[in-house]
């Protein structure tokens, strides 16, 4: 079966899941099954089919499972957001249409990935500017003490979602050029491989940027995500564990320093370590405490879609920010450990397709790009789910394709488009003398 036919077939479960999910919520809320649920399912199926047709014509050899896996995540998110707020779900659906548009535009505009390499410094600058935009007076927005949003008039978006892609593109391109030098120019000192300072300079800049992020954006989670993505790329490019170790030590030192001096970060860490402390359990710690309570409510199989308690009798929120930060807690509460594991499994499969693409890619830039994008995608999942489950301090990043939010949807569709572009080139069968198949 051709890749595209497999993709078409794989879209069926996504549509079934969506229809079943909506049906469950309708039954829960009105005790009758209305045909609206079927309409939603049909529209979504239509959108998926359109996306599929587009890929059939533009990227016929691209990985057949990435798009359906994304569709599963997207429809899953849509169902959960619909259960939280009907109006938000409608907006989210519109973001999906826009996201698919941007997805198509990316594929059409970046037909050749080398275009990206040519503009790497522009892209890097754009990424950094986007990153620090939320601190610009007048348009920056502070949420829960962290600067992650930008508001211009009625439009508000989270630029960090886009800058993560820009930074990965830059790093992939930069490391493609310098990886040999970084490895060969290294000296061994006290048993540790030290890279040449000249080429390591720009990488120290990235470390500095991650530290600055902690100071300016005040968000441990997103700086962990960026720096983690950077270290992943560095490791893939050089295959030197010592670089990663040095990086981790540097980040650890920086984070420790921040946690002990910047009061906002310090508070976050204190709340993380002891969420039920009476001093903050009803204030700053409310979110994580309620998240854990909601998950405990879910148990093994959950309370059922639409059955979990979001608000108390007096209208107080029992799961703050249920459609964004804490959407994973809502999912765990309603679908239990089983449902949550299913969701993580889908993310893992998507990451697997991404890393497989990296392995299949024949040129270094594509390889690094695919590995970097997959790593940063997986790290984003880890940062937000880890925050909600108290593995790390809770921070405000979105759950890709599931959380409500235009910026997140749009950015992640661009990420998907880039991965599919790499994949299409890597999996293209040998044609004539130009045939190049890196792997069997």
């Amino acid at each position: 079966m051709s890749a595209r036919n497999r993709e078409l077939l794989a879209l069926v479960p996504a549509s079934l899941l969506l229809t079943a999910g909506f049906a469950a919520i309708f039954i829960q809320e009105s005790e009758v099954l209305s045909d609206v649920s079927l309409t939603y399912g049909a529209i979504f199926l239509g959108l998926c089919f359109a996306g599929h047709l587009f890929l059939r014509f533009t990227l016929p050899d691209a990985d057949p499972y990435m798009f359906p896996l994304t569709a599963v995540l997207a429809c899953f998110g849509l169902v959960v957001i619909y259960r939280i707020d009907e109006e938000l779900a409608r907006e989210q659906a519109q973001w999906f249409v826009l996201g698919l548009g941007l997805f198509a535009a990316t594929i059409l505009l970046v037909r050749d990935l080398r275009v990206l390499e040519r503009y790497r410094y522009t892209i890097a600058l754009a990424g950094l500017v986007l990153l620090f935009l939320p601190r610009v007076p007048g348009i920056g927005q502070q949420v829960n003490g962290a600067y992650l949003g930008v508001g211009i008039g009625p439009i508000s978006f989270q630029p960090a979602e886009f800058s993560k892609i820009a930074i990965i593109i830059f790093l992939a391109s930069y490391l493609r050029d310098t990886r040999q030098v970084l490895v060969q120019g290294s000296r061994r000192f006290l048993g540790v491989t030290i890279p040449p300072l000249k080429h390591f300079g720009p990488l120290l800049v990235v470390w500095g940027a991650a530290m600055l992020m902690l100071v300016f954006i005040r968000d441990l989670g997103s700086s962990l995500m960026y720096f983690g993505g950077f270290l992943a790329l560095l490791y893939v490019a050089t295959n030197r564990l010592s670089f990663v170790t040095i990086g981790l030590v540097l980040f650890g030192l920086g984070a420790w320093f921040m946690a002990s001096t910047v009061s906002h970060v310090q508070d976050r860490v204190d709340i993380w370590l002891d969420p039920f402390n009476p001093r903050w359990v009803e204030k700053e710690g409310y979110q994580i405490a309620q998240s854990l309570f909601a998950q405990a409510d879910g148990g093994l199989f959950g309370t059922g879609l639409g059955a979990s308690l979001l608000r108390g009798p007096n209208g107080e929120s029992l799961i703050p920010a249920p459609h964004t930060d804490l959407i994973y807690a809502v999912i765990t509460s309603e679908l239990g450990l089983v449902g949550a594991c299913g969701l993580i499994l889908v993310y893992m499969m998507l990451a697997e397709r991404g890393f497989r693409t990296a392995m299949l890619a024949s040129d270094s830039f594509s390889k690094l790009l695919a590995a970097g994008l997959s790593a940063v995608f997986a790290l984003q999942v880890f940062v937000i789910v880890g925050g909600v489950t108290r593995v790390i301090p809770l921070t405000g990043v979105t759950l890709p394709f599931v959380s409500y939010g235009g910026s997140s949807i749009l950015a992640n569709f661009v990420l998907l488009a880039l991965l599919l572009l790499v994949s299409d080139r890597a999996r293209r069968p040998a044609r004539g003398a130009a045939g190049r198949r890196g792997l069997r």
Partner: protein
Amino acid sequence: MNKPVVRLFALVIVLFGVLVAFTSRWTVFEAEALRDNPNNRRLLFEEQLIKRGIIRAADGQVLAGNRPLPGERFERRYPTGELFSHPVGYTSLERGRIGLEEFYNDPLTGRRNDAIGALERLLGPQKVGDDLRTTLSTRAQQAAYDGLGGRNGAVVALDVKSGAVRVMAATPTFDPTDPANADTFNRATQSLLAPGSTMKVVTAAAALDSGRFTPNSTVDGSNGKAISGTPLENFGGEDFGQVDLTTALTNSINTAWASVGEALGKETMGEYLRKFGFYEDPPMDYPDDQMVPSGEYGPRGRLLSPTSDQVDVGRMAIGQDKLQVTPLQMATVAQTVANGGVRMEPRLVEKVVDPDGRTIDEPLPEEAERVMSRESADQLALMMRNVVEQGTGTAAQLEGVDVSGKTGTAEVGDGTDNLWFIGFTGRFAVAAMLERQTGGTGGGNAAPIAAQVLQALGE
């Protein structure tokens, strides 16, 4: 460059594994602790959305029902108010739950811990709980409170054959709709008092069933006899001389029974105490923290082994010194004798009924233990009938039905007495207790209450 990519993916798998592990931690392993966390109000709010099961008396009278609140929520109402507040308890957002509301909270909220329950949870939460049909009698409960007349005390009545609790009354009682100001101390299950001469029933059971005595054995009932080195007085200082065991019970002769206790020894007495259910929480369907075990208590409120050096076995045999018991325990003693020596587990709930009217659970009856042979029990019952017919318990007599019993007047030490009566007919066993009364006797004050309750039960 493929090897690092594989390792990177391996790291992602590890990280996601950590996420799964932590999700399991909160949803399964530490879920119980999180639900009990005082900051967690979810459960209480969720339970407000559930229409709790209705608790009814044996005659169908609603003891706990529901009143609708705005927002599809419900609030508990207790139509019988203070009459049944001790057995039924309350459920409150602020104060939690006690009584049957606590013990049967799972069925009352529709939670079933089996495979079908898990399946139903998948389809959405159970919004209607299961009903409880208790064994409690409205008429007899009222008769008990009438008899207590506001004095501190308690009455417990049990079905002889099944152990079903027909009456559980304790004064003071409380308003279940105002838990914040409620004194919920249940004198039927929580008060520890010297049982006085009612304890001679236990001593007599040990004496007869161990084969060391018969109802006709001769014992010494002289006044002022030395027991454990200290002279013991009979009630009113009366000297009975040599008497048989039946007479010793009929006239409640302290010195005679104390000598029986000494003759039997701590080992035998302790064995029968345990058989009667002393030294453990009563096996009743009621919260453990609202029941206490009966037995010998040391100076710091700790249970003493019956064979401990500190135990004065002679005085224990007549229900004095360090022996402390609950009215529920003494009702069980009467029930055991009446039931041919077989102790039954007390039960408050007869059956659990689901919203469709199907019976889900019938907790009755459960045999706890055979305490003594049928022969010993019958001999003892006959001796106790003598007490009511011609001894200290004549106030418990009822027309047309044989009543057996034993009175008790236990000195507290500050001039007041605890007044006791335990007794039974063929169908019901009862224990009545009045706490720290000035003047009066078990036979004169507690026995009439028992008679009224037995009458209200249909005897």
